[in-house]
């Protein structure tokens, strides 16, 4: 895929706004949505660890959407003291009920966690997200923000069930110094952005239910755009192939979320390819008086041997790459759309071990 210049995303943005505006003008009514998810967090870690990019002391996630007949426009703008990003901006057309084709910047569907929780902390029972599901700007090692086309569809199967399919194709992030750099719709885009293809095929026992399980696939072609990467990676490019499976099982008062990913990293032919596995299992149980207890285990294999993974470990004190983690926490939904959460975790990273404690207030407004 050719390098995408700055103009292309801007062109998409402007074209879509004109398209949507004219589409809406032809109809009498349109409905809109605006939600703000806010959170404040305190962090303490033993040893040299300190709060990293994934632990801002305060953050706000602004979600806005417009729906008019089959047309949809949707955006998510995320703000922290250090970051302001248009995380998602999508324009969609619903061909038939529950089948939508989106154009824009989206969260890749092969992530079991991020397509469910996105950036809204309040809807996530726990405080942290599994390391393998981290965003690119949190030293995440799997591309999460893709700019291109996303097809999503849910169709009936059997008496009550459904099959859900997501397929995404677009521009992958570039591999810059110590991070993946996704296409930015309102900022600069250094580096070369090549092809990303991602998909999810899921089975839902109930068409309208929250339980689902399925298979995940992703292929991301990454090009190193920083000379300092070459000595570490010994390759100009890394083509990631991701194969995964997940389950999100909901049966009140229980919820179980688990996913496992096999990641194959194809490097230049002069060097040896590598692969690693990472996965997690989280169990949640609602208790009386709106308390929820949760625990999560994360584990991995061969990540410590991967030169690709090592690129993301900048040894600045906060843990970027966890090999193993155990977390336990308690959440209290003390009033409508507000919650307090405490989470304790033990992390084994590439170069240290740490015990961490986090406390968080999260809310959804209005």
């Amino acid at each position, binding site marked *: 895929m050719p390098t995408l210049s700055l103009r292309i995303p801007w062109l998409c943005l402007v074209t879509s706004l004109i398209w949507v505006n004219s589409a809406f003008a032809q109809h009498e009514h349109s409905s809109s*949505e605006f939600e703000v998810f806010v959170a404040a967090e305190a962090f303490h870690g033993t040893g040299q660890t300190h709060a990293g990019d994934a632990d801002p002391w305060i953050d706000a996630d602004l979600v806005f959407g417009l729906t008019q007949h*089959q047309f949809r426009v949707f955006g998510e703008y995320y703000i922290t003291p250090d970051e302001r990003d248009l995380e998602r901006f999508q324009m969609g057309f619903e061909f038939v*009920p529950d089948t939508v084709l989106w154009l824009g910047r989206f969260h890749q569907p092969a992530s079991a966690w991020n397509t469910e929780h996105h950036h809204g902390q309040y809807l996530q029972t726990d405080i942290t997200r599994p390391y393998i599901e981290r965003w690119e700007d949190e030293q995440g090692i799997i591309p999460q923000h893709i700019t291109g086309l996303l097809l999503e569809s849910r169709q009936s199967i059997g008496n009550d069930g459904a099959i859900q399919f997501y397929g995404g194709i677009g521009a992958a992030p570039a591999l810059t110094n110590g991070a993946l750099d996704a296409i930015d719709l309102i900022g600069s885009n250094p580096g070369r952005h090549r092809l990303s293809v991602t998909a999810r095929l899921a089975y839902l026992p109930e068409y309208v239910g929250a339980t689902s399980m399925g298979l995940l696939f992703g292929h991301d072609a990454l090009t190193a755009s920083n000379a300092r990467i070459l000595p570490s990676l010994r390759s100009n490019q890394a083509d990631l192939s991701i194969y995964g499976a997940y389950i999100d099982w909901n049966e009140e008062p229980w919820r179980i979320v688990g996913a496992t990913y096999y990641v194959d990293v194809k490097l230049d032919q002069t060097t040896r390819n590598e692969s690693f596995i990472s996965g997690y299992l989280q169990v949640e149980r609602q208790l009386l008086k709106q308390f929820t207890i949760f625990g999560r285990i994360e584990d991995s294999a061969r990540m410590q041997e991967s030169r690709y993974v090592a690129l993301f470990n900048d040894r600045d004190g906060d843990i970027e790459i966890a090999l193993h983690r155990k977390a336990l926490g308690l959440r209290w939904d003390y009033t409508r759309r507000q919650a307090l959460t405490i989470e304790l975790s033990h992390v084994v990273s590439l170069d240290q071990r740490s015990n961490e404690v986090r406390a968080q207030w999260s809310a959804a407004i209005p």
Partner: protein
Amino acid sequence: MERGNSVSKFTATAVLLTLLTAARPALAGEQLVLIVSASSKIEQLDSLEVRKLFLGLTVTHNGNRLRPVLNEADDHVKEIFLQNIVSMSDITYDRRLLRLSLIQGQTQPTAYKSITLLINSVAADPSAVSYAWAKDVAHETRIRILRVLWYD
């Protein structure tokens, strides 16, 4: 003795029928019904379609997307809606709607705490679907009852 017994049975039956007849309006008031505008072309919606609609999934009729309207005029209606229509607790339903906003920017259903405003809203929009006590809409010519969702 035999004759007196027959008279007693007759009297008891008559009293029972009278009581039942007198009780009918009260029983009718305890029916939760699915409603649309009188100008709506919707003929019927089955239970799954109703559940999909109020859980934020797309339900269409003759190509038109239906619009769910929540009745929060009294706590009992909300309780029956949560238990019998969406089969969720209040907090789970609220999170489900929030999740729809977060995942796709989907518009959440409009909620009314006034039955008058709800009736006006449904009556004005042929794509709107809601629910209400039968007694609240029985004499409302702008509203059409599709079916009974719940009765006591």
